[in-house]
């Protein structure tokens, strides 16, 4: 059957593009939404994502010039095959990757002074509390016992985690992280979004950029596998390795490097993610950066990073 819709990938994660271009990639649609399709790769088990043209690049993602995946009829269980420059979803759609721009997570080239970072973080936190979407960390979406308790547990977990990271207590930090994983409403529970932001901020701004040295990040990946759903897990595992979607990376750079741009625009872009997901991620980014100040990593040695 040649019934499929042909679509063009505008840009994409370098590794994902390489898989489509070269060695055959096979998978099955894990979940499909109007603006995103998650594909479980049969060989390495990782989730790969197609997003519509109005969304941003991210790890294991392709940005595809189309408006609505569900309208094409893509659904859970569709088989996905790729190789030789295109990716086919069942008989329904063909994504052509020739000419797609290769994307990698942008990284901060410089580190701003601690004082400036503190001020930016305080301003950003005030903005989030004011403009963020209720659901998880911000109360008010539904006035129910469940919602109130969830918000309280999120704050307890986040506060405890920040303190533990600040004093470099990995065991305590993991205990708190465990209580955040899978907690809260939404497809990606609030606690997971928060951890995604926190891990990405730490991974992108730490002195030792490699994961090997971060026992905490390792630990969260290990815990997350069984504590939450595959979509949330994929984001956490990538963030822990310093790979995070474009908008979040831009926010981390705007907050943490010596750029003259005020971080407000980058923050607004993050707050627009999902329903309350952007809000939780932004909180995570702030707490992640703050934890680097608290444990003394921010002041030392960032000049020898590059």
């Amino acid at each position, binding site marked *: 059957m040649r019934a499929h819709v042909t679509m063009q990938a505008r840009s994409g994660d370098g590794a994902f593009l390489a898989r489509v271009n070269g060695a055959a990639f096979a998978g099955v649609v894990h979940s499909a939404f109007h*603006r995103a399709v998650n594909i479980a790769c049969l060989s390495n088990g990782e989730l790969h994502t197609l997003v519509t043209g109005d969304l941003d690049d991210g790890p294991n993602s392709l940005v595809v010039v189309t408006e609505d995946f569900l309208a094409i009829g893509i659904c859970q269980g569709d088989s996905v095959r790729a190789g030789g420059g295109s990716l086919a979803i069942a008989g329904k759609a063909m994504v052509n990757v020739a000419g797609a721009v290769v994307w990698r997570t942008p990284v901060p080239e410089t580190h701003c002074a601690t004082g400036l970072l503190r001020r930016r973080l305080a301003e950003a936190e005030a903005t989030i509390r004011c403009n963020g979407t209720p659901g998880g960390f911000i109360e008010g979406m539904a*006035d129910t016992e469940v919602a109130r308790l969830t918000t309280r547990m999120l704050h307890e977990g986040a506060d405890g985690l920040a303190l533990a990271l600040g004093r470099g207590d990995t065991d305590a930090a993991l205990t708190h992280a465990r209580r955040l994983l899978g907690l809260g409403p939404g497809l990606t529970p609030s606690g997971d979004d928060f951890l995604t932001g926190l891990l990405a901020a730490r991974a992108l701004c730490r002195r030792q950029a490699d994961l090997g040295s971060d026992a905490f990040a390792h630990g969260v990946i290990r815990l997350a596998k069984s504590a939450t759903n595959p979509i949330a897990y994929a984001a956490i595992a990538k963030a822990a390795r310093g790979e995070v979607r474009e908008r979040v990376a831009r926010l981390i750079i705007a907050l943490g490097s010596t750029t003259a741009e005020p971080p407000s625009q980058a923050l607004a872009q993050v707050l627009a993610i999902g329903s309350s997901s952007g809000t939780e991620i932004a909180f995570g980014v702030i707490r992640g950066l703050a934890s680097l100040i608290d444990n003394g990593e921010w002041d030392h040695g960032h000049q020898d990073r590059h």
Partner: protein
Amino acid sequence: MAIKTAIKRNTYFDSVSLMSVTGRANAVAGVDQAMIGMGTAMNKEVLQNVGMLTPEAAEAQSGDLMIVVRSASDEIAEQALVEIDELFKQKGGNESGRKMNYATIESAVAHVPGANLAIIAVAGEFASREARRALESGLHVMMFSDNVSIEDEVALKTLAHDKGLLMMGPDCGTAYIGGVGLCFANAVRAGNIGIVGASGTGSQEVAARIHDFGGGITQIIGTGGRDLNEKVGGIMMIDGINALARDPATEVIVLVSKPPAKSVQDKVLAAAASCGKPVVACLLGGSEEAVTKAGLQFGKTTKEAALKAVIRAGRKEEEINKRALNLPLIAETRAKLKPEQRYIRALLCGGTLCEEMMLIAKESYDNVYSNIAKDPARKLKDVSTSIEHTFIDFGDDDFTRGRPHPMIDPSQRLARLVQEARDPSVGVIVLDFILGYGAHEDPAGVMIPALVEAKQIAATDGRHLEILGYVLGTDLDSQSLAEQTAKLSEVGVTIASSCTNAGLLARGFVSKEI
């Protein structure tokens, strides 16, 4: 407190949908709280802490969606789960955005939430079956179809009555329900007067007059023309009166009908008298005595009924423009006609309009013929040839079998108009022009060439031919009442302001004494 759980295995909805469904789920009536979230260990702990962790929820995996509802009773919780599931279906949008065709009433009822009325306008031999299925599916019915047996009508109306549903029709052409005109209906002001009508154009006429007198309408319930027949016994008329009696917006009720069978009339008038609201009964040609004895107001004509209703509904009599009959016009017209031009020829679309004008003529003349006359001696043997005073209802079976209604297809009336114009014994030709939903988009316009031709034929013959037009409509109808009237005036048509006045004018034009 009752707690109910639904688990959607391996089901992923985007966060925006989940949040929106959560918000709306907590607003479902009777729900104390609803939790919608992924089945992760931490979310289960939250449920545990608030005492909502059911065994089913405890089993959920992190890729499953949990829906847990707490409410006062099991029934409410179950109902809430059903409603939440509906919210997901709407969110899923798989069917909602697509335009689906349904082939059966049952299927449409299953897919269209809130559907409450079926309009049945199919060939008569199939109509009863569809109406029965609609009633059995819990729908009220408006049956436009005719040619339905009286046995079927009784069975359907009995079924509807037992179920507390309205069975309007068969042969019900007009209704106005919940602010929406159905089939043939005029756009009227909302108000406090409800109508139950056994005749479609009669209801339209009364409603249009009420509108013109400054009143307004709540509902028009049609019963179909045979409801007051002995066999049917006025089931729908009585149910309609009772429905309006219970309708808080309705303060005055108007009944419109031809005179019922005696036994039925007693029942209907008794029901009207005990309904607790003022009732004006317009039983065309019926007994004033019976109506007033029952304690109701009598409307001798449609115009009188409308006027009485508007006054009972609270409008001051002195503020109403009653559209009094133009007596000088009668004298003037009479002077133009030759002595041999003695007859009225009424070519009408509206059955009740024909009925009422004929009644008015019969008050003065005995030689009144019609295709709808009850008296066999006065019934036209050949509907294509007029005799003396002739009143033709083009909406009757004689003319509609296998053809569209004359309100939609004017061709038969056009031909007849020209034919009557050739007859030197004709003094006045009366035409009605019905506006509103379901009617022709330009009923006056399509008649203009024939009107001009008719006038010319008479002029060539050296006589004046009076053509009297009545436009049934309101200033809210989509076919502009003012434009339609102007078009007719331009070609020399005299315009009557109501059906009643049209009848009186026509009678006057050919009368030999005042």
